[in-house]
């Protein structure tokens, strides 16, 4: 459904996006993570053809976005962070502007979402709270039978209750196995449950793109006593953090490390945040 290959873009100010590739099949959710400035927004802008790419290809629904921009975007629901709406308008006015652009706009579905989200259509957009703006954004994105939903930091700035509500909505969307969601975020806890795939980007390069379950199996946190750290054990870690109380590190070879360290060690699941932190030098 979304296929990015060898995507590259050079900026004059020095930042480069280099050789980024990943694929998202229909029916799945992909989380897109990376620290600030890692190239997440650039990647999304390139996917949506908001910027011209230097190299590589972006294919959505099997077609090149530069050639078939209109028919592809007709089927994409796009949700932004700073919802770039015309703030002075009311929800209703904004909808009247947007709806005619889409061939499969469904007024009834839109109304259902507005009701479900408890939005007041007569209200001006600038008066909405961030969470309400996000829900409105979603309502618009979901009302034209989009097959691919792309979300750029949709949950940042939202309180945990809203975030959970939005996740529930995403779960509902994904019940249809022909739809996919691509979701970039800092808030990795949101992804830990729902994401099927995780793509991690850092310093403009791809670190990995694989199934979340595989990532959870592969990476583990091992904790133990600093005294037991031999050079051999150290080399099995991606990175180690030492404190006065011991050490903690991320490793792909948890079984081997555990054996070497023996009883004086603890193996735990690594959260996405851990992985992002310990791998922040990669890329």
């Amino acid at each position, binding site marked *: 459904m979304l296929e990015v290959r060898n995507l590259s873009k050079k900026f004059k100010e020095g930042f480069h996006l280099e050789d980024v590739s990943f694929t998202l099949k229909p*029916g*799945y*959710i992909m989380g897109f993570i990376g620290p600030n400035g890692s190239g997440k927004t650039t990647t999304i802008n390139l996917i949506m053809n908001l910027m011209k790419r230097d190299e590589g290809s972006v294919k959505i629904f099997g077609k090149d976005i530069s050639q078939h921009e209109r028919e592809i975007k007709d089927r994409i629901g796009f949700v932004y962070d700073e919802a770039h709406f015309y703030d002075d308008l009311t929800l209703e006015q904004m909808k009247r502007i947007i709806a005619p652009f889409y061939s499969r706009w469904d007024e009834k579905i839109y109304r259902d979402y507005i009701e479900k989200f408890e939005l007041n259509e007569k209200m001006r957009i600038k008066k909405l709270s961030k969470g309400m703006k996000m829900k409105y954004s979603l309502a618009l994105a979901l009302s034209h039978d989009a097959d691919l939903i792309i979300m750029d930091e949709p949950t940042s700035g939202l309180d945990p209750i809203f975030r959970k509500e939005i*996740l529930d909505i995403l*779960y*509902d969307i*994904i*019940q249809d*196995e022909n739809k996919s969601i691509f979701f970039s975020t800092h808030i990795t806890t949101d992804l830990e*449950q*729902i*994401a*099927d*795939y995780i793509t991690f980007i850092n310093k403009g390069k791809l670190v990995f793109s694989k*199934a*979340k*379950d595989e990532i*959870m*199996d592969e990476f583990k946190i091992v904790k133990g006593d600093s005294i037991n750290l031999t050079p051999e054990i150290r080399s099995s870690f991606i990175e180690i953090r030492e404190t006065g109380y011991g050490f903690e590190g991320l490793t792909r070879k948890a079984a081997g490390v555990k054996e070497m360290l023996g009883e004086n060690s603890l*193996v735990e*699941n690594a959260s996405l945040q851990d992985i992002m932190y310990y791998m922040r030098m990669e890329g």
Partner: protein
Amino acid sequence: MRILISNSSDEPIYTQIFNQIKAQIIRGELDAGELLPSIRGLAKDLQISVITTKRAYEELEREGFVETIPGKGSYIAPQNKELIREQRLRIIEDSLMNVVREGKLMGLDYEEIEEMLRIMYEEE
């Protein structure tokens, strides 16, 4: 069907699902022909990813516990009674093995263990 997921367990989630469904089949709590929830519906209810539930179902299918009919869903496969009986016997054997090991570690002899077993059997 009951499924309880622990996020903090060492066991991968798909394994937990697999084991729990398998156990319920073996204990006879799930009957042949019963329809399992869709992988997406289950993912939503358990608040986990679709791939995870898919993998669990695939494992179950591979081991012969579940049958998937495209377009309809996943059903509990008719279980070989003999096979089930064997599985349950094996579970008991494992427990007995533990008892024997622990007993030997403590220095108990066979008669003492047998006595314990007899008392428990009569009380139960």
